């Protein structure tokens, strides 16, 4: 903990030195950013834009994980589904995020559906790949156990399959969250009139570095909080039956 604190303080110090030694419209210092952050918070703008962005993150993330899990599971379990969908998966994996976003805005319009759909589509292939691996790794011995003891389908899903898939789902969720929140900002920057990404665009147009950092920092803080308080504990929980590494 002490080392982490020291590293953060060192970063602040370097930032302060860089700000003081610069000239013109260069880097604002921590104090200036903090003042701007408070100002934005007091006016409510910060919370509004953060809230909008978070809502998009949640929507796109949920959509991508739900669809990706279903498709990935089907591909892992059925070889015909794998053969049919694999080329599309490879295409989607290699399609630049920007292309998907631009195409979505052109074909669907500059609206919320296009924005969330484009983000979800960017995350979708990773979720598919992870869950396909999970489905492939399912132990057929447990399927046989479920068969001979005639476990009802719901019980089989909840108690036999889900625990085996959970670590793959958690890994996909973790990498997915960090991917989604980065892409949401790009989508907002390119075609929405609110959200942190939109504010970044305003700051960029005005060359207002203070505003840019004042929005970037709390946003990163929120995402890190979600990661540490929600995603990581969840990941530990779903895999805590595994023997600990020595």
């Amino acid at each position: 903990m002490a080392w982490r604190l020291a590293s953060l303080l060192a970063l602040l110090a370097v930032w302060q030195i860089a700000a003081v030694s610069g000239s013109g419209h260069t880097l604002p210092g921590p104090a200036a950013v903090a003042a701007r952050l408070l100002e934005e918070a007091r006016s409510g703008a910060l919370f509004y834009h953060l809230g909008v962005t978070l809502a998009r993150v949640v929507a796109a993330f949920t959509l991508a994980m739900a669809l990706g899990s279903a498709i990935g599971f089907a591909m892992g379990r059925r070889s015909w589904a794998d053969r049919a969908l694999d080329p599309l998966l490879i295409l989607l994996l290699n399609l630049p995020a920007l292309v998907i976003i631009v195409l979505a805005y052109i074909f669907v319009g500059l609206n919320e559906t296009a924005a969330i759909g484009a983000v979800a589509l960017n995350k979708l292939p990773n979720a598919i790949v992870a869950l396909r691996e999970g489905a492939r790794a399912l132990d057929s011995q447990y399927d046989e156990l479920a068969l001979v003891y005639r476990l009802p389908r719901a019980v089989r899903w909840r108690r036999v399959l889900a625990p085996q898939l959970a670590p793959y789902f958690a890994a996909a969720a973790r990498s997915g969250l960090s991917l989604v929140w980065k892409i949401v900002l790009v989508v907002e920057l390119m075609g929405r009139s609110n959200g942190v990404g939109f504010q970044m665009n305003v700051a960029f147009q005005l060359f207002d570095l203070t505003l840019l950092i004042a929005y970037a920092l709390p946003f990163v803080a929120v995402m890190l909080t979600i990661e540490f308080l929600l995603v990581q504990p969840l990941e530990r929980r779903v895999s805590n039956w595994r023997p600990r590494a020595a």
Partner: protein
Amino acid sequence: MRLDVALEAKTYLNRDGRTHAALGEVAFALRAGQVAAIVGPSGCGKSTLMRLIAGLERDFQGVITRPPNLRLGVVFQEPRLLPWMSAEDNVRLVAPDVGDDYLTELFERFELTEHRRHLPAELSLGLARRVALARAFAVRPELLLLDEPFASLDAATRGNLVEETSTLLSASGAATLVITHDIDAAIRLADVIYTLSARPGRLVGRLEVSAPREALTADEARWLTERLARAC
């Protein structure tokens, strides 16, 4: 409950496209309350036979008849406990209606009482095997299939386990098939012992075990040894 096995052959397709036979002609019947043991050399298809009877493989020549919706208890060669559940939850998963008294009795018989809340990773192989046995008995099976339930256990543990299993079998009234290469366990548990030949396994002998089971008569011992020697 009556199980009728009239198997003609079970073949597998190799990777190189050639078929090879795992089992030949095997015919026997098993009724409620009867315990049969199948002994034979390694690789003669004993476990395959169990998989066919359990309904895990349906592609074979011949007929296996058993009542529909049969309550089946199976102990696989490896314990097959779900690693994310405690020993007790593993048992309750397959037998959700098991009474607390019966569960407690099973755990006591198999000396598992202090391990009820333990995860499979915290159990030794011997303990995990006992949980698998308790699980199979917990469903109050009509047909019980035990595939090498006492393999790789030390002599004392095996002795106790065979003893407890024998008591539970007499009380349960299940038709039971024990697959083993442990002749002592077969004699101790079974009313009838079938011997399989080397691969592809065919039924080559049948021996009724009469009480007292403590030892075979000299004739019976010679008979079994000869059969097995010939089979190998």
